[in-house]
């Protein structure tokens, strides 16, 4: 092993009590776990019957975490959770705001248990305002934020993105905020409350819609040979336009005066698109990409999941992580001195009960057995 690999993970001394579910919350805590945080995931006692997809979904977003069972609907369960708060640095949750409060786990209460605790809440609308109790999933957030409305073909109804993109966005911004709060705690010794409205987090990435600007790049998605195969192409400037023409074998139409300047290419996009597609559809998306990239033009095949799984660039950079026969995506932050580490598959329910309840909380075997008997853990 190189010295590099022996480096202590950055977040090694960070313990997170993880109340999250679905995607946004688990994605946030997964990133922190990948960089060494000890994430203790609270799991329901009776595992729900799950199909292959749900199992895969859970495995994917919960690697590197510890799992404990705990019934928060029993008073002994709530008491136990309080003990866990006492030994944690941060609490992360993504329920609608009333849920944690109902258990007595709003920030004010957590602060009484652990004065420097950092609490991170991710909810659809945030923890205040007339719509605070609105519930939602990725598509709800994307619709409310403006993203769905803005992602439409000209003159067609809104189409949106086809995946819960906003969950990833809110999770990552929440991570950034949480790391900020850690830095702040290091300086001042004080914890704080982080309230993330997923709708607000997503709306912040729609800046172009609030500040009028003009399209300055000739670009598009062009049909290629094969069923549902496409290549995306961007031409930023005149140098790239020269390369573009070369890649296409210098067709006479490319010398049309209408296409000679960047503004001309944008103004006459429709005509130009038709001519470009006349060329792309005769070859594969990968050939189009290679020919254009060789001439210094940004081009990329429109890849589906199967293409991604065999993408040579992703592969070479180790983007796909294998753990116990399952595959998931790496955290796309490559740190030279302290890289992310992938040590454990997602935990089975209660897998780490002994470690957490006995070693961390110092409970005896008898106490734990009693709680088990009462159906608390």
């Amino acid at each position: 092993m190189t010295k590099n690999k022996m480096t202590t993970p950055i977040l090694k001394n960070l313990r997170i009590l993880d109340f999250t579910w679905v995607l946004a919350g688990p994605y946030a805590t997964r990133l922190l776990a990948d960089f060494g945080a000890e994430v203790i995931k609270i799991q329901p006692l009776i595992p729900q019957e799950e199909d292959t997809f749900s199992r895969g979904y859970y495995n994917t977003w919960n690697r590197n975490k510890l799992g404990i069972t705990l019934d928060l609907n029993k008073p002994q369960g709530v008491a136990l959770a309080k003990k866990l708060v006492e030994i944690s640095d941060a609490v992360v949750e993504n329920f609608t705001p009333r849920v944690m409060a109902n258990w007595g786990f709003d920030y004010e209460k957590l602060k009484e248990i652990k004065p420097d605790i950092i609490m991170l809440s991710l909810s659809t609308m945030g923890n205040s305002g007339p719509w605070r109790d609105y519930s939602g999933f990725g598509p709800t957030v994307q619709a409310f934020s403006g993203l769905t409305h803005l992602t439409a073909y000209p003159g067609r109804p809104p189409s949106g993105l086809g995946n819960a993109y906003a969950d990833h966005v809110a999770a990552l911004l929440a991570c950034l905020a949480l790391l900020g709060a850690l830095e702040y705690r290091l300086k001042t010794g004080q914890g704080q409350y982080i309230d993330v409205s997923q709708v607000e987090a997503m709306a912040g990435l729609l800046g172009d819609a609030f500040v009028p600007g003009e399209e300055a790049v000739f670009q598009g998605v062009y049909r290629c040979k094969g069923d549902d195969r496409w290549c995306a192409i961007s031409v930023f400037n005149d140098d790239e336009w020269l390369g573009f023409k070369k890649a296409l074998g210098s067709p006479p139409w490319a010398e049309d005066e209408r296409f000679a300047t960047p503004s001309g290419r944008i103004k006459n996009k429709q005509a130009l698109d038709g001519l470009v597609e006349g060329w792309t559809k005769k070859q594969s998306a990968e050939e189009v990409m290679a020919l254009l990239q060789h001439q210094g033009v940004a081009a990329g095949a429109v890849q589906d999941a199967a293409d991604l799984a065999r993408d040579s660039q992703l592969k070479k950079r180790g983007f796909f992580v294998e753990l116990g026969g399952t595959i998931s995506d790496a955290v796309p932050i490559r740190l030279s001195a302290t890289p992310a580490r992938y040590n454990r598959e997602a935990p089975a329910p209660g897998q780490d009960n002994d470690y957490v309840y006995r070693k961390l909380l110092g409970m005896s075997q008898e106490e734990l057995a009693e709680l088990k008997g009462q159906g608390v853990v």
Partner: protein
Amino acid sequence: MNGGSVLSGYRVLDLTDDKGRLCPRYLADMGAEVIRIEEPGKDSGFHWQDLGKRSITLNIELEPGREILKRLVKTADVLVESHPPGYLEALGLGYSLLSKINPRLVVASVTGFGQSGPYRDYKSSDIVASALGGQLYLSGEPDWPPLKPFGDQSYYLASILAAIGVLLALLRRHTSGRGQHVDVSLQECVAAALDHALVRYFYQGEVAKRQGGLHWNNAFNVFPAKDGYVLLSLFYQWHTLVEWLDSEGMAEDLTDEKWRDRDYRLQHIDHVIDVLGRWAKSHDVAGLVVKGQSMRFPWAEVASIPGLLASPQLEERGFWVEVEDSDKGKKYRFPGAPCSLSRSPWKVGNKAPGTGEHNREIYQELGLSEKEVEALIKEGVI
């Protein structure tokens, strides 16, 4: 009770183009002093990603410009850049050299494909990253070309991830005393934000396809209502939903026993959508959403920007900031902080700097005399 900001006292040098431009803005939001470095003689115009930054001009392709950058690096904690891999090395400004000048420096690089691999030197753009990262294929209607998500989303994702990398590296620096290099690839950032797509492929061998406003698992659909578009769920609280439609005489045959079976509904989803579509069309968006949400349906207005700006929720939470484009003398209502921190506020600045606006202060602080500055301007260095 607030007590200063997270990154006060940190200096960040911003050498990005649009790919990484939002990363230093987040650091500015959190209180860092961000100095954007622009090419002399070019007005880069107003960018919302530059809010709260300072700006100087400096040509790092000229030797005196490189020397000045090295002096700046000695004063900095972080440098964020998005040049093609190898560009800064060729100028003698690569990470290994910069870290010799300032071992505590954290450098973040945002590029199309990262600092390694067979595509490292390929060109990229937002639409190309979206294509190669797998987002584009998932978006749009089935018989139409893939649809680019609004905005340069791959650039924004990469910027957030780079900012996370910077904070991680700064946290480590407290104990190690050393900075490190953060390598972020647009393609990877997109591929790491695909929700269901890779899970379905690796666990079920299924290749996810786009299906317009119908969510991938048929759980939601976008419907035209009387006065706009509304997002309705198709499965949640089925019984309650059918009762509601029925109370208005619009449930059609959905009251039949057979529709209670979830699998049956999934197999005949088109019919469910037709019936719900007729119902939605006879209602206002707000009426559906307010009543639906009060009954715990995860429904939403498909908000336009004017709709969003009029939202009582965002208003009440004080989400908006007023942003000034001093070039055009215009003011805009603009999205504020994405996260509310109770002690160390995340604050979006309300002004972007003019190109080179802070040349005098910053060069003076570096110890350059007025005369030296004049000479450097003449030589095209500043």
